[in-house]
């Protein structure tokens, strides 16, 4: 009996100490977050947007977005839509953010656009991270000729000016969601290759990796079980910041006219409707643009805060 008690007791203390370590870590991170008011604002805004996106189909009936009849070839001008003869582009007590070219309430459209924009951002960033982790980790860990080759390729992509590559990509592969997402992804992955390559190179030299090598652990195991888990924090920070950046880029493409469907409820696309008549109906651009700004700001505030919290110097 006595042995069991000691056994369960030590098992209990063991579980407690594991939980204790986790709680200690959490308590410390919260302490740092509280210290910075901007981060708290960031967290609240992100939570607000995610919740609104999830409930968007409840808040607003998706049918109101209207259907863009592909059969009729409207060509490129937007005016073809006006035959609907619906009161367009006015601001009144019913439509607090005003209506767009097709008489749709802009606030409703923005709410409908949220899930689309957020999911696209998450898709692109996770794609870039996955791509970057593979190439970056291999380049950093293997080194030599392969590392040189991967570096040169990322240099090429970094040399491309602004959106031109994404635009050419979208123009060539047609205006559908997949090609647009691929277009932005094509411009975004090099950031992560460089970030992860740098992290792996730094971590590889640390003493505990040498010790593991000396203990005969396999190179692949060391890379995925030890080096990569220790580089998660910087990737997390960059990914959070990039969620904002991707929404800006993607909506810019839409704004310039690359959207597959002019009536699609996407923030950049909504804003592009106001290009021709900005001074008569400024709300067409101002409110969707403001939405993009606040979403990006939310992610940037959060990412910026995470960087301070996860700063290794502070953690120790």
């Amino acid at each position, binding site marked *: 009996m006595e042995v069991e008690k000691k056994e369960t007791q030590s098992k209990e203390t063991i579980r407690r100490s594991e939980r204790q370590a986790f709680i200690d870590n959490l308590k410390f991170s919260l302490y740092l977050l509280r210290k910075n008011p901007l981060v708290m604002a960031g967290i609240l805004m992100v939570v607000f947007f995610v919740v609104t996106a999830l409930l968007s189909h409840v808040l607003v009936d998706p049918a109101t977005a209207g259907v863009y009849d592909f059969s009729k070839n409207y060509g490129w001008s937007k005016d073809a839509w006006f035959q609907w003869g619906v009161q367009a582009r006015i601001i009144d007590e019913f439509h607090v953010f005003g209506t767009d070219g097709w008489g749709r309430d802009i606030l409703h459209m923005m709410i409908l656009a949220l899930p689309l924009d957020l999911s696209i951002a998450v898709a692109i960033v996770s794609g870039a991270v996955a791509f970057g982790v593979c190439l970056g980790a291999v380049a950093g860990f293997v080194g030599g000729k392969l590392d040189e080759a991967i570096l040169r390729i990322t*240099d090429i992509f970094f040399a491309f000016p602004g959106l031109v590559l994404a635009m050419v990509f979208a123009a060539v592969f047609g205006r559908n969601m997949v090609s647009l997402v691929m277009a932005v992804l094509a411009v975004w992955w090099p950031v992560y290759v460089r970030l992860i390559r740098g992290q792996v190179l730094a971590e590889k030299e640390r003493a505990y990796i040498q010790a593991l090598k000396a203990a005969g652990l396999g190179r692949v195991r060391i890379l995925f079980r030890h080096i990569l888990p220790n580089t998660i924090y910087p990737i997390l920070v960059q990914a959070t910041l990039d969620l904002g950046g991707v929404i800006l880029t993607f909506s810019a493409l839409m704004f310039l006219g690359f959207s597959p469907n002019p009536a699609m409820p996407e923030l950049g696309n909504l804003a592009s409707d106001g290009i021709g008549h*900005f*001074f008569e109906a400024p709300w067409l651009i101002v409110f969707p643009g403001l939405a993009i700004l606040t979403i990006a700001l939310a992610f940037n505030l959060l990412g910026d805060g995470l960087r301070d919290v996860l700063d290794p110097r502070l953690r120790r």
Partner: protein
Amino acid sequence: MKIYVYIIRRLILMIFVLFGVSVIVFVLARGFPSALDPAAMYITEHTTAEQYAKIVEDHGFNKPLYVQYFYWLQDVFGGDWGVSKWAASQPTYKVFFDRFPYTVELTVVAVLMTVAIGIPLGIISAIRNNKIEDHVSRLIALTGYSTPSYWMGYVLQLIFFYYFYMWGLPYLPNKGMVDEFLLGTIPRVSGVPILDGLLAGNLTYAWSALVHVLMPAFTLAFISLGTLARLIRASMLEVMRQDYIILARSKGLAERVVIYRHAMKNALIPAVTLTGLLFAGLLGGAMITEYVFTWPGVGRMSLQAVFQGDSNFLLLYSLVLAAIIVFTNLVVDVLYAFLDPRIKY
């Protein structure tokens, strides 16, 4: 001896990068004739089927891609960058370099604004760390970082052009790079309006050019001054934690002297690198701002080129800007060596 070896090595790498850029754009622009027909630049509404076939034959558009690439290279080295139909079929080279100085002017003024506002913002938020000034400047920086440039452009126009005009206040123009009635009144030397105005001694021209560039340049600057401010804040905080700052204080130096003589020099070195990258980034990013302000730069034209399917212009645009981006990085790295004595090549 060392430094020029490094430069030569970097120049060779640069050629490789430009080659890579040209291949990618070439494959995209010429590889999918159904989407982007290279022959489109040479046909008019009433070219017949055989004429079309003859054009395709002459220009070798039907040949395998790598053969086309060599033809393209031959032409390019011969100075022939093809023709841009949508710009009255003028040679693409002329179309591009007529308007290129305008983009340069816009970007340079934007970078100057970024530096002028970003560095003080960063220093203040570092020195007044975690106090009100720090949070305010961080908020400005992050807002700039998250603002869609087109939204910023239109909002500025709405206020400083439309409403100011309505309220009778002195308003900023929102179109073009100089007043219409002044166009062409002075000889074109560098092509940069402000510079040409000054060179020609025509102050009204130069002033009008400056006034025109303010709003678009600020739109561009607002996005990047956040990045610069944040970097300066981070590097200032990092430097202020260093041991040699403690030694400087232990010498009895006033805090002001410690910051300006010891901390500043170390903290601003990374800013040089970032300013170089920002300049390169703005060159590309100017596209949307030029579109919003109808600024006659190459960025706006590249947008038209994409919609018009003009692969000649896109190739030229990508290569010239890529060359500038890579060259700026080289200049910045070499400059880094002069500022930080520890780095030797």
